[in-house]
């Protein structure tokens, strides 16, 4: 398809602006001006509409395709929350309004949403206080690790290590390293659970925290999680909960009760806010009471029914975001939680887990299941059987695309060879799952019978397989 720059034509125009109603001959001195106009496009409004509408049709999305991308929780995003986040009363509000004298009174509605959402997230996770500020999961991780670092520092301890299971999300070690820690990976045993012997050996006085997901990235709930937390606490380390998989256990278990000290959540996963093609998300962070004083500036406090901002926290890690987080995302998550209520949230988790187990049972005779135990919200298969015939996880992914299904996450977690991580979510129907299952079986049979065929897939898409090596070698990043 043409680039928008390729349809540009001098003299075309798509904008209208208010007339300049003042007369002024004041000019900016030449030396401060750009030499040439920015080479932006010149097109009509309809050109723009047609172009981006055509682009939108070249995407798989939850609204048009089954999208069982493991770990990403591609559940349905309700439409009414989009409407609420577009209200002028939210969109037109300047974030500095509550920070000027007298302005707090004029932004009580927005402050209420954040304050109430933080309270709901506390109850959902069993934590004592939340900050809505982090703008994505990875941002939440960094914030959480900074809180942990601050805690140890103010205790006068210089701990240097963060322990992370080998099947953790890649962001975990990256966040810990960027906050200044050395990272040690704890291997998983044959049962898919953390190797406790190895953990005990690594858990020295130098360890600041253990950072993990629960259920983990294999979709397994580790029954020994409390034991791990107790060991960590005994060694003076804190427990960090990566909330990417919280959607599996709503109302069943809470990180706060399991012994976690710091959690981040991904509102765009568990609480159904759209993923936006890769953002914006929201990654609020919750902590236990003892850590609340380290939360980022500002906090929202309530006094006689009025909400206001508190900047006077002397133990805080400081500012981590310019304001209060991705506010419009917070509005959507808040609306979702209020609509579902406690029962709805439990139902969401139960059915997410049921859907994943259903797929696991129906496909286990066709694909290798490296860890044979009940799964939570996602199941991880290996295409090892198929790869013996030369059909790899990526080939299966491309075959699925031709069937109109977005592929599962492939090659993650790293400890599973040829991994295919399938997360159906609760909003998908049995009919959709059955269709997916029959296609996966068909693909397994084809892999056995005619493995060569896979090299052609996908062939129904706007482009066929793309040369990624060339993309990285002959960089072409802009037109």
């Amino acid at each position, binding site marked *: *398809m043409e680039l*928008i720059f390729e349809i540009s034509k001098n003299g075309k*125009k*798509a904008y209208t*602006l*208010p007339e*300049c109603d003042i007369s*002024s001959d004041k000019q900016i001195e030449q030396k*401060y001006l750009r030499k040439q106009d920015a*080479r932006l496009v010149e097109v009509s409004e309809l050109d723009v509409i047609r172009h*981006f509408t055509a682009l939108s*049709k070249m*995407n*798989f999305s939850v609204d048009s395709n089954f999208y069982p991308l493991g770990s990403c929780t*591609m559940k349905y*995003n*309700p439409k009414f929350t989009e409407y609420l986040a577009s209200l002028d*009363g*939210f969109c*037109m*509000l*300047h974030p500095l309004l509550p920070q*000027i004298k*007298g*302005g707090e009174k004029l*932004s*009580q*509605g*927005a402050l209420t949403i954040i304050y109430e959402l933080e309270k709901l997230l506390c109850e959902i996770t069993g934590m004592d206080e939340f900050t809505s500020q982090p703008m994505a999961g*990875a941002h939440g991780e960094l914030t959480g690790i900074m809180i942990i670092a601050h805690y140890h520092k103010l205790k006068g301890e210089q701990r240097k290590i963060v322990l992370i299971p080998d099947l953790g999300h*890649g962001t975990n*070690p*990256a966040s810990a*390293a*960027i906050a*200044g820690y050395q990272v040690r990976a704890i291997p998983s045993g044959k049962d898919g659970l953390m190797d406790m012997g190895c953990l005990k050996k690594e858990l020295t006085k130098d360890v600041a925290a253990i950072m993990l997901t629960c259920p983990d990235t294999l979709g397994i709930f580790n029954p020994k999680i409390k034991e791990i937390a107790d060991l960590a606490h005994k060694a003076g380390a804190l427990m960090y909960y990566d909330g990417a998989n919280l959607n599996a256990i709503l109302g069943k278990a809470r990180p706060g*009760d399991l012994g976690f000290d710091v959690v981040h959540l991904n509102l765009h996963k568990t609480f159904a806010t759209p993923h*936006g*093609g*890769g953002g*914006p998300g929201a990654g609020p962070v919750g902590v236990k009471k003892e850590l609340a004083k380290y939360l980022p500036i500002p906090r929202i406090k309530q006094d006689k029914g009025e909400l206001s901002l508190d900047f006077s926290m002397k133990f805080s890690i400081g*500012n*981590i975001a*310019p*304001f209060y*987080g991705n506010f419009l995302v917070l509005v959507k998550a*808040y609306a979702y939680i209020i*609509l*579902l209520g406690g029962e*709805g949230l439990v139902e969401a988790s139960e059915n997410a887990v*049921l859907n994943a187990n259903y797929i696991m*049972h129906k496909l286990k005779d066709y694909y290798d299941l490296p860890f044979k135990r009940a799964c939570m919200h996602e199941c991880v298969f290996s295409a090892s059987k198929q790869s013996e015939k030369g059909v790899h996880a990526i080939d299966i*992914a491309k075959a699925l695309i031709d069937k109109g299904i977005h*592929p599962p996450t492939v090659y993650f977690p790293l400890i599973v060879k040829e991994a295919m991580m399938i997360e159906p979510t609760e909003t998908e129907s049995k009919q959709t799952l059955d269709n997916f299952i029959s296609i996966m079986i068909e693909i397994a049979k084809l892999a056995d019978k005619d493995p060569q065929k896979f090299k052609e897939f996908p062939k129904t898409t*706007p482009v*066929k397989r*793309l040369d990624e090596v060339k*993309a*990285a070698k002959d960089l072409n*990043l802009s037109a």
Partner: protein
Amino acid sequence: MSYVANTKEEKSEMLKAVGINDGNIDRLFDDIPKSLRAKSFALPKGKSEYEVTRDIKKLSSRNNTGLISFLGAGYYDHFIPEAVNALAARSEFYTAYTPYQPEASQGTLQAIYEYQSSICRLTGMGAANASLYDGSTALYEACMMAIRITGKNKILSDMSVNPIHRKILYSYTGNLSIEFKEIPLVHGQSDRKTIDEYLDDNTAAIILQNPNFFGAIDDFTDIIKKCHDKGALAIVSVYPISLGLLKTPAEMGADIVVGEGQSLGMPLSFGGPYLGIMATTKEYVRKMPGRIVGATTDTDGKRGFVLTLQTREQHIRREKATSNICSNEALCALRAVIYLSIMGKEGLKEVAGLCFKKAEYAKNIIGKIKGVEVKRSSPTFNEFTLNLPKDPEEIIQKMLAKGFIAGFPAGRHYPDLKNYMIVAVTEKHSKEEIDKYAKELESALWS
């Protein structure tokens, strides 16, 4: 209600299929020991869509968005063409995820490629990434990038760079051994003398902002040349709308460009989502953090787009990654490229021109008020600074009652500037509003 799609019968059939015959769905959670079950889950009962909508609409009306605002401080109320909203509301865009499977994500990938191209054309730089969270996190990532490139650890931080952004930078790096030297504020443009003094062989980068937090326009060419002579890089933070007119950071010789992209089609939204702009020279592109989209060809030789240079990223490099950020603000980048396409070459120039002219008009008329000094030690773009004869905090509060947000009190971040107020004007302000503002400011000061 939970948007669960299956009937009771289907659920029990599925439970049977997984070996649970008594219909008890809770048995799926047998791996969670009884002692570890949730101690509480006291959430309110669910509500209907009508009730939730009604209640949240009511909350939205408790925010006063009817004020005439001259508040900017890095975040501006520009006009957003409705086509931006209409296209960004297409759910094929907003219900997709990171384009890991390029053949199924060409829409998002091409849009990001066009976004990167537009940012390059706007800033003059050789390469842009697919965006970061916001302007402040982009500034932090730029500093880390400069430290990686130079192997040095000292950053000169100009105090006229957005103070919130600098605070965030300092809290992120608190645990690392980075030395920050602040270039003190002088009225108007950045203080060349102190920069000369602080710049040494151990300097990784200087961070500058144009226009700066007080609205002053600068040309950093001379500073940047001196940095390069010492082996330091120059990070320049920009206000993208101003680039419709102003000298580009590339023309000044900048190595890394960052910016808050909110003004490119994002409403103010009480603080987010916004857009972190980042661009660099071709030389440093492989050191740049964040997602990057590249053009390539498919097996038929047809052009297509993929995420590229992924070997820098956390999902492959883990603790050795250039950044922990694993997403961008794709939908905001989409809004930005649509905005820039609608405005186009002429439109962006015209918006920038309107902002400048209206701000000049405002400076002129406000400057006539008794006791008010308009700072004129340097040219400004759409924002300027007033020295008031009374405490701006009080004046701002008084003017709220008259329906105006008068500006931002500089004393909040600069204790020495207690009487200064920063005022922003955009293309949305009419002459009538500016006249009325000046009148109300005068009366708040003197009556």
